[in-house]
């Protein structure tokens, strides 16, 4: 779960990390009032879960009320990479002499947390990581002990940040790490952490992503969750609780287990077709879930052919078949052809149950995929 910038900044600020003065605004009038209150120059920032907001026109610096009015008017309501902007953060523009990057995440390869510091903040840090990896100091943290103060200092000194500011920056990094732990974050980042001429620090941007699996014990953060989808199908998948990604092809795919669904997509591609989506209904899927999945795929107007691929482990073939029959019971004839392949637990029972007047049943994965691709081509 991603926090918006304004939410992450509130969390950071509560933990004692300095952030610039800011207000959230949903209208141009609110934005202008905020700017007048804070004092110019101010930055106007779209609050959407999109990377590269600046380049996409979602961030503007304004030096007076007129500019702010214009910027707020253009950003509020805009469509940013498919996301509708309904809120902006109006924030004091900090006069900085340097911009740093601070980040904490899980190093999946090590299985341990890692704290990172770079003096090359304020830019696309992934590019820095690729082009000059040495510019990012990394300090692996033992999750049993948490970050030791010396580790925060070491990362800062290793990043070439010395002098009086080193103490403040290490302190912010240690706080960021503790927040990352306390919030069950997957990632916590400040980019940039601005250094002012007076030697102060301020978090000018804030990223905080929370581990979805830990939201049960983070009720305050869970409340901040705001569903944001680029289209109705993604919204529907969210409501149904499916892992769903919309793709550009026309073969609708439903399966159980991420690996098997990915392999099915790969096979569709292998046999010359193009998948319309990734949809994992998960383990132990009951009839209702199966019906919901079919409903979703039928609702996608790009889909010309549906492939249903279930390998039963916990999921039982007869349950799946009942779900398919239930979902299809409303139709005399299907709008688009459906191929079903059942294997594993109770697969034979399932295949016997299926209304074969409506769906085509295949016993092997390869045959099922080929048939679905053929169906899609026949319609295309």
């Amino acid at each position: 779960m991603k926090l918006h910038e304004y939410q992450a900044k509130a969390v950071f600020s509560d933990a004692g990390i300095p952030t610039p003065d800011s207000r959230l605004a949903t209208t141009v009038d609110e934005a202008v009032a905020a700017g007048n209150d804070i004092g110019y120059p101010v930055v106007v920032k779209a609050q959407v879960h999109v990377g590269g907001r600046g380049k996409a026109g979602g961030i503007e610096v304004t030096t007076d009320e007129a500019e702010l009015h214009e910027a707020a008017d253009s950003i509020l309501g805009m469509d940013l990479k498919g996301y509708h902007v309904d809120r902006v953060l109006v924030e004091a523009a900090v006069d900085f002499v340097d911009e740093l990057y601070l980040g904490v995440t899980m190093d999946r390869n090590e299985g341990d947390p890692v704290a990172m510091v770079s003096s090359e903040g304020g830019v696309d840090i992934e590019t820095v990581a690729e082009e000059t990896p040495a510019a990012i100091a990394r300090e692996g943290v033992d999750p049993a002990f948490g970050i030791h103060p010396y580790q925060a200092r070491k990362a800062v000194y290793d990043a070439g940040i010395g002098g009086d500011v080193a103490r403040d920056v290490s302190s912010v990094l240690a706080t960021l790490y503790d927040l990352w732990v306390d919030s069950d974050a997957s990632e916590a980042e400040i980019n940039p952490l601005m250094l002012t001429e007076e030697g102060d620090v301020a978090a000018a941007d804030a990223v905080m992503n929370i581990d979805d699996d830990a939201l049960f014990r983070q009720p305050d953060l869970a409340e901040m969750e705001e569903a944001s989808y680029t289209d109705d199908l993604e919204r529907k998948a969210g409501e149904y609780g499916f892992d769903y990604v919309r793709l550009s092809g026309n073969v609708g795919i439903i399966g159980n287990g991420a690996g098997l669904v990915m392999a099915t997509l790969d096979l569709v591609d292998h046999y010359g077709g193009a998948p319309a989506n990734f949809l994992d209904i998960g383990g132990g899927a009951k009839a209702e879930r199966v019906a919901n999945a079919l409903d979703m795929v039928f609702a996608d107007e790009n889909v010309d052919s549906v492939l249903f691929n279930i390998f039963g482990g916990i999921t039982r073939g007869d349950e799946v078949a009942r779900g398919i029959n239930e979902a299809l019971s409303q139709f005399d004839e299907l709008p688009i052809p459906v191929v079903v392949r059942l294997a594993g637990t109770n697969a034979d029972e399932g295949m016997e149950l299926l209304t074969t007047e409506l769906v085509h049943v295949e016993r092997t994965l390869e045959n099922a995929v080929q048939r679905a691709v053929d169906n899609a081509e026949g319609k295309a």
Partner: protein
Amino acid sequence: MSVLVDADTRVIVQGITGGEGTFHAKGMIEYGTNVVAGAVPGNGGQEVAGVPVYDTVHEAVRREDADASVVFVPPALAADALFEALDTSLDLVVAVTEGIPTQDMAKVTRRLSETETHLVGPNCPGVITPDEAKLGILPGDIFSSGPVGLVSRSGTLTYQVVDNLSNRGVGQTTAIGIGGDPIIGTSFIDALELFEADEETEAVAMCGEIGGEDEEQAAKYIASEMDTPVAAFIAGRTAPPGKRMGHAGAIVSGSGTGTAKSKIDALNNAGVPVGDTPEEIADHIEDVL
């Protein structure tokens, strides 16, 4: 021979009184697994699926001389259950539970690294030595005994590959579903080491998927340390970059790794044939047997 489990493995089930725990404890027993006890705090003295339940894992292990555990404890309590299991020096702990917070797992594996225990999972289908014992939720009837070791990050994809093998009459020594979570106990390399040391395992089928660098690291291990032939399948060739993780994760994982291409290239460079389809990995396995 086999790895990790066999007919003599004495198994306890943590969370045996829950719906999933009871269901799969019965399934394991039906398969022939030597399930000796359950462990659920506050439920000591009960009997579930024909085995006694104890309040603590320690008591279950001590009284029933167990050497392995399967964990069906709900995610919020699962890390504690894993620490409890690790504290009893079991040989094997299989964590079926899905949805354990990642930071919990980082602590568990930190502790794991100081023990001799093999932890498989979490979020995994389990481990099976066909005709001897299964620990987890795998559908036993698709497996058959034979010379192929199987290791996979995916559940249902494993079943698909096993089905393909079994249908050709190619049985398995042991199949290990290591799980697809970011932090897991047994990695590809750990599993490959076990198979390499097992005399009955004549070939290894390895099913990976996009994300992480575990397959790339396994490729290095195979090239330098393994005599047993390996064939692989990598799911996710056509997956779009999709919804990226945030910056920090991307920085750490580095560029150029984690994609299907980088994994397939690494495996091919290690001399490992990678099937284009689940049938092709079975072809490759048949070739080397």
